[in-house]
C-alpha cells in the first residue's frame, strides 16, 4: 500500500496535489499559463427522493 493511500487519499487527489506542486515550481513565464488549468468552478448538489438536499460547494 502506498503511503498516500494509507493517509486516506485516492489516486486522483494524490496526483492533483502533485500536479499543483509541479505548477507552482514552474518558471514565471510558464506558470501563468499553467495556473489557468488549475481552476475548477463545478458545484455539487446531492439529491434525495427527487429533491436537492444541500448545497456542498467547493470541496
Amino acid at each position, binding site marked *: 500500500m502506498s503511503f498516500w493511500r494509507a493517509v486516506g487519499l485516492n489516486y*486522483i487527489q494524490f496526483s492533483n496535489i502533485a500536479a499543483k506542486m509541479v505548477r507552482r515550481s514552474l518558471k514565471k513565464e510558464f506558470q501563468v499559463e499553467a495556473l489557468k*488549468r488549475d481552476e*475548477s*468552478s463545478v458545484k455539487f448538489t*446531492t439529491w434525495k427522493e427527487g*429533491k*436537492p438536499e444541500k448545497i456542498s460547494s467547493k470541496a
Partner: protein
Amino acid sequence: MWAHNAMLQPIIRHQQSRGMATLKAISIRLKSVKNIQKITQSMKMVSAAKYARAERELRQAKPYGEGSTVFYEKIKPEEKQESTPSGQKLLVAVTSDRGLCGAVHTTVARQIRNELNEAGDNVKVICIGDKSRAILQRLYGKNIVLVCNEVGRKPPTFLDAARIAEQISQYEFSSGKIVYNRFKSVVSYVTSELPLYHKDTVSTSPNITAYDSLDDSVVQSYLEFSLASMLFYTLKEGACSEQSSRMTAMDNASKNAGEMIDKLTLTFNRTRQAVITRELIEIISGASAL
C-alpha cells in the same frame, strides 16, 4: 346615396384605424425580429470562437479517453449482475448548463430515459450540467443522486473532471455508463456511452493477465485515474459538440429571422401602400363630392 354613405362611414373609419394599427404593429414586430437576428448572429460568432478553442482542446484530450477505452476493450470484463451485493447501476449524463444549442442535451437525456425505463429503480443518475437535470427531474427525480452545475461556462479542466470523479466514486455501483455526445464534425455529433466497471469486475476479468504485475492497489489507482480521465474526455467531447451545435442552431435562427424580416418588410410596404392608396381615394372622392 347619403344614407348609404353614412352607413358605410363607421365601417371605413374602423378599417382605416385598424390599417394604421397593423402598420404600427408590423413595424414593431419587424424591429424586434431584427433585434433577435442581431442577437443570434452575435451568439453564433461567440460560439464559433468557443468552438475553435474547444476543438483544439478536444484534440489534446482525446488520448485520455482512448487510453481507458482500449484498456477496457483489451481486458473484456464480464458484467455479472449478482456478483456484487448492491447490483447498482450508475448513469452519468454529461451535459452543460447552457441551452440554445439544438438537441445536444435532449439526446443525452433521452438515452438515459430509455435506460431508466428498461432497468427500473436500481439505477442512480448523476447529472453533470443543469440541462439534463431539468429534463430528468420531473419524471425520474428519484433516480438522481448528484447534480453538478456551473458546467459549460468555462472550458472544462482536468481538475473539474477530477472533482466530479471524486464525488462519483463515493457512490457504490457494480456497473455504469457515461452518456455523452461524441463530436464527429462541425455539423454532427453522436450520442454515445463509455462503460464504467466495478473494481472486482476488472480484476476478475479473463484477459487481465495480458497486463503484467498488476496488484489490487494498482488496479484501484488505475480505475480512479481512468474515471477522471474518461470524464475529462467526455466533458471535452460534450463541450465541443455543444458549441458546434449551438453554432448551427444560431446560424439557422439567423437565417429564419432573415426570412421573417423579408416577409415582414414586404407586408409592411404593402400595407403602407394600401393605406396611402386608401387615403388618396378618400381625398379624391371627398373632393369630387363637394
